[in-house]
């Protein structure tokens, strides 16, 4: 929404020594607040490539903008798991040929053969983490390990909840809360999903993704649905909040760097992907964004406090994570209806 305007104006131009011997350009389409500027500078210094970046605030915005004509103006993007498979089925991705990336071997084995990109033909890991919510301990002292905090909140939290403006994650979370499978086509279950969200919306203050951290820091929201690293940053900025690992389940995600079809600077894009597979470089992203990397050998470059960060270390009894699943058209149409009704 308005974020997109913020976003488009957030063009990062790397100047300095590098531009004097420009080795071409690289155009990145990336999430907001997700890569340190120093790392982009470092890439420019090492390669002489001039980097420009535009940002988006949801996987759906990324897809919509690429389909609306931005394909061909960007070299790489950073879609989440389910969006990698959607973008692939939409023909928006370029295949990475074997041998084109010399650091491919650095990828941790559990992230090599993933359901959204078997064999890693189109993507490399960027960061992974979970989507849950943080609760202000100044406002609420009770049990937060239930999604009821979001969907059926206690009185003291009503009207103080910020929810990510992200259909996929909200509906996935609601499905976990109800104990129904994602992308279900069962009518009773979809009906229940609709009713749950209709009822819950009354208790929500706002939908905001790029402000999800700020509303917690400022205290405008007492509960904020949030990505784990973003929640850790909110805590680091002074919010007295605790990240929840709900017993009903945990939404997990992995963002991935993909090579876009018709990339104007394909060679430079591959150089950038190789650069991000270097443990030292991707560790800089992790230190900045407070998520986790999917590359071997990052540990020695990570900040010491990351290892004990509660947002990254689930309790022993935390449930297994579930990725957001891409639904087929029939179910997606119903999801869109439900979402429109929520925001009506």
């Amino acid at each position, binding site marked *: *929404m308005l974020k997109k305007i913020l976003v488009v104006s957030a063009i990062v131009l790397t100047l300095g020594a590098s531009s004097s011997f420009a080795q071409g350009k690289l155009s990145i389409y990336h999430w907001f607040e997700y890569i340190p500027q120093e790392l982009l500078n470092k890439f420019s210094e090492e390669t002489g490539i001039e980097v420009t970046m535009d940002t988006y605030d*949801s996987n759906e915005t990324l897809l919509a903008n690429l389909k609306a004509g931005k394909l061909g103006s960007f070299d790489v993007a950073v879609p989440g798991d389910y969006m990698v498979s959607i973008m692939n089925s939409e023909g928006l991705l370029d295949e990475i040929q074997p041998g084109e990336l010399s650091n491919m071997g650095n990828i941790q084995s559990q992230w090599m053969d993933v359901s959204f990109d078997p064999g890693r033909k189109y993507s490399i890991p960027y960061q992974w983490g979970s989507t849950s919510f943080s609760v202000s301990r100044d406002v609420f002292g009770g049990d937060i390990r239930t999604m009821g905090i979001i969907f059926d909140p206690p009185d003291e939290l009503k009207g103080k909840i910020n929810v990510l403006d992200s259909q996929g994650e909200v509906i996935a979370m609601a499905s976990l809360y109800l104990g129904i499978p994602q992308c279900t086509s069962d009518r009773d279950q979809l009906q229940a999903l609709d009713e749950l969200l209709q009822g819950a919306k009354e208790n929500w*203050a*706002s939908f905001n993704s790029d402000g999800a951290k700020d509303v917690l820091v*400022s205290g405008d929201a007492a509960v904020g649905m949030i990505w784990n690293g973003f929640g850790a940053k909110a805590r680091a900025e002074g919010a007295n909040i605790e990240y929840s690992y709900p017993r009903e389940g945990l939404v997990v995600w992995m963002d991935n760097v993909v090579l876009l079809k018709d990339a104007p600077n394909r060679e430079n894009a591959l150089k950038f992907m190789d650069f991000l597979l270097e443990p030292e470089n991707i560790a800089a992203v992790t230190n900045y964004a407070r998520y986790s990397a999917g590359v071997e050998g990052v540990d020695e470059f990570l900040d010491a406090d990351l290892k004990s960060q509660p947002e990254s270390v689930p309790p022993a009894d935390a449930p297994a994570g579930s990725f957001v699943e891409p639904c087929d058209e029939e179910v997606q149409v119903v999801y869109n*209806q439900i979402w429109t009704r929520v925001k009506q």
Partner: protein
Amino acid sequence: MEPVYHQKRAFDPLRTWLLLPSWVVIGVFLLIPVGLMLLISFMTKEFRGGVIWELSLAAYDQFLFDRGLFGDDPPTIQWTYIVIFLRSIVQATIATIFCLIIGFPTAYFIATRDPKNRTFWIFLVTVPYWVNLLIRTVSLKFLIRDNGPINEFLLSFGLLSEPLGLINTNIAVQLGLFYSYLPFMVLPIYASVERFNFTYSEAAADLYADKWSTLRRIVFPNVVPGIAAGCILVFIPSLGAFIAPDLLGGAKNFMIGSLIEEQFKGNAGNWPFGAAASMILLTMVLIALLLYTRQQAKGEVR
């Protein structure tokens, strides 16, 4: 009258050519985009954004009829979008009224200053608008939020026991719209009042009209065109606004602008429906403007 006539005839042969740039601009920036929009609104939607070039009325059907969550109930009237449109109209109307209440006295004040100083006052009105709309809206958000300076000031002086709770409400949206479009009200009214011949109101005063009657019966009728222009300039952009509802309203309640945006950039990815909603909005505005111009024309004849 003579010189005007001559001038007109002198340019006659050239007229078509002189008008050409305007026609090109209108064609390229108005007719073609709107035509394209109309066309897309009658096409079939493609899953996850885009269009299939097959004729379909599905977009308008979706707007008008509710076929239940699964699309196979018997059709009833679709209230969802009507509610969104009505909400937008109400919000835009309230914002326009606010702008008029504040804008008219402001414009009147400026227009009645010493001519040398008027430019300065106009300059003051426009200063905040040198800054991008988005930045201004974000600033307003910081100002009015529960832990923002306004609430903290009122709370610390004991004027309030609870924060005002303005943020994420319809009132915040109206405030945002009012703030965004106020100069569009002030400037046309100022232009009208400035042109008003104040000897008329002096004459009215000489005939024992009190100040209120003078304002209502002499000044007001003469500046109506400015007021109408101001109202149109505030109302129409407010109707399609999406920055204010998104930032100040917490993106909780769609206005028309956010509904349309969602079709192209959000989850829905339904271009024909977005185009159809835009066409319906366009038609509504067009009808309102036509009614207004007919009213104006009648008034002039009288």
